């Protein structure tokens, strides 16, 4: 257990990010700068989100699911889209294609999310003597999260960066973006209100992220063909 398990969990949590960067053409175009910028934007966005959460939400002592609170949480979650939009459009990137830009931003975004929310619990928990499945699930969640963030970045880049889209897919793009942005709330609903087991929740996250990735990739493909 202990250190060995910790290393395993780190590989599972952060490995896919590294692999994604090195295996895809992102590494060839040296887009690490874009990813780092996205990471910084993520930190700022999270700060804004936390301030909003602290302002608009009551602190719930119990672990129950409150529909109104969760709705607020979802709305605040849409700040993410604004953050990604800012990272994609307002920041000056070196001349890289749109396809690579959204990938780099999504990657940086997901990586920042993993570092912020998963590294510290891992360091504290996974090195303990007691064995739990929790950290392995957390690693799998990080994988699902990477896929989700990439899809979201793709959709956001479609929404605002690509001018001549086929008219029929525009509502689908917006709907998908809303679904993706509200995914954290959906998961929390499943976990708290329906009382799903961690395994089931992780399974849902993995499948849904893959399905969403497939849909957004098809959308991206459709828009690309239009050009």
């Amino acid at each position: 257990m202990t250190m060995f398990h910790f290393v395993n969990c780190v590989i599972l949590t952060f490995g896919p990010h590294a692999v994604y960067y090195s295996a895809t053409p992102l590494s060839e175009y040296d887009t690490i700068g874009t990813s780092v910028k996205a990471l910084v934007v993520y930190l700022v966005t999270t700060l804004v989100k936390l301030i909003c959460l602290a302002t608009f939400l009551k602190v719930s002592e119990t672990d129950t699911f409150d529909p109104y609170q969760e709705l607020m949480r979802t709305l605040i979650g849409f700040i993410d889209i604004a953050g990604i939009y800012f990272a994609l459009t307002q920041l000056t990137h070196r001349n890289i294609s749109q396809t690579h830009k959204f990938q780099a931003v999504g990657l940086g975004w997901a990586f920042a999310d993993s570092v912020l929310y998963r590294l510290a619990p891992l360091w504290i928990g996974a090195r303990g003597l007691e064995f739990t499945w929790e950290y392995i699930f957390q690693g799998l969640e990080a994988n699902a999260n990477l896929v989700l963030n990439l899809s979201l970045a793709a959709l956001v880049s479609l929404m605002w960066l690509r001018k001549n889209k086929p008219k029929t897919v525009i509502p689908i793009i917006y709907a998908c973006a809303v679904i993706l942005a509200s995914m954290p709330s959906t998961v929390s609903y499943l976990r708290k209100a329906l009382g799903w087991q961690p395994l089931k929740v992780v399974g849902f996250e993995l499948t849904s992220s893959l399905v969403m990735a497939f849909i957004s990739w098809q959308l991206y493909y459709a828009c690309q063909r239009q050009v």
Partner: protein
Amino acid sequence: MVSTRGGGAGGELLESIYSVLVLALVLVACVELGDAATAVDVYRLIQYDIAGVPFGSRLAGLNHHAGSSLSTTNADLSRTAVILPVRELNLTLLNEFITSKQPLGGLLLLLPRRTGSRESSEKIHGDSLTRSILVELEKLLIHSYIPYPVYFAFENSKLNSILADVRRSDATGQPASATSGGYKLVVSSWEPKKVSSPTITNIQALAVGSDSNGSGVVALLEIARLFSRLYSNPKTRGKYNLLFGLTSGGPYNYNGTLKWLRSFDQRLRESIDYAICLNSIGSWNNELWVHVSKPPENAYIKQVFDGLSDIARDMGVKIGIKHKKINISNPRVAWEHEQFSRVRVTALTLSELSVPPELLESTGGLHDSRNLVDETAVYRSVKLVAESLARHVYGQQGRNIQIFAESSSLEINPSYIALWLDLLSRTPRVAPFLEKTNSFISALKKELSDHTVDVYGTHESIDGIFTFYDSTTATLNIYQVASVTFDLLLLLVLGSYIILLFCFLVITTRGFDDLINMFRRPPSRKTKAA
């Protein structure tokens, strides 16, 4: 690019979902979800030296996997902490194991649920088998040298379920080890240190034990209360002063009594008519023993014994007398009165035991619990001693009068006895580990000061041949640990997942040829974009 490879990737995607599903299934199949770490209070077996010879459990720290039986003869148990419930203990096996000095990682003995209160005692009352096992077990453990940690814990549902789990895995022939996982018992504790200056507090009695010698303490308190009622009135005040002493260190050759007597003035010591020591008077039925160290024909002894036996006859109980000479050359003091006799004070010990206990025997062990003590026995002992004392004090020897008759104002109070017995049964009182400022000592002091004029407590250090070691209690953490095999397997699965992901991504974004090229030539070469 992603977009140009659209057609072929649908199948790949399905494949990746499939692989993730397989991964999840593999993980689920391995072990069920582990629960959180369990922490249990445990009590370590005493560790002590007599004249430099080590006895008891010599270690405190424990960090081993759990096992459930000693009988796996060919297996190496030196890295296994064996959990044994006392209820089903095979004593002969354990005895063999300890005497043949086989290596063991540690021993955790599960005691039946603690029974201090009367309600729960009924159930246990019939369980005399467990009690006899406890007596034997204690005798065995205390008098042997055990080079590994031995802990006691009280059974609870968590421990029982863990034990059941351990048994199940043992039964399948997969004892817990680093390679197979299982439960791990961890007690993080320092090397036990010698108790620097073990103190004994005179006024107080010693050792966990309702009978040895909680019953004596209770009787003394009640007698003190009875006489305080007589003495508070100037008309009924006797011509004697009564001196009540609660001394500690009984199991260690009555060291406290010795110190107490030594602190006496010579004149005070000579003015003592006689002393009655009360030792284990809580569970006798019909026969009590008077132990003396002078021959029974001795005039003083005869006088006191006659006084006691007169009353015993009236009460319908039998008392016998036992004479045991003091062996001056032997440092072992068998009875408390021997300390008195050594300073030439006429003394006797009243006890239900017919023979003196061996060293550290009958010093209030695990079996010596509240339900063993009979209140009526204590009641009768109090009556016996109090009446005989009163007759002596008021010069009424040989007359058939009852001073502490029932339903008089001087009646013995059974509920007082019961309450103090309950309290004593709940309070461990092992002298070397008792703080000077222990609340129990102050309670005793307070109680005595309510009934007597002058109460003082003294703290002395135990001298002599005993050395004690600390860390008597600890917290045992039980972890469910995964095996190294599992970790290795997980690493393998993760490694192949990462590699598959890498290949998948390269193929979908750059094409299969690039993947081949990557392994064929140095990766630093810039490949042209698709």
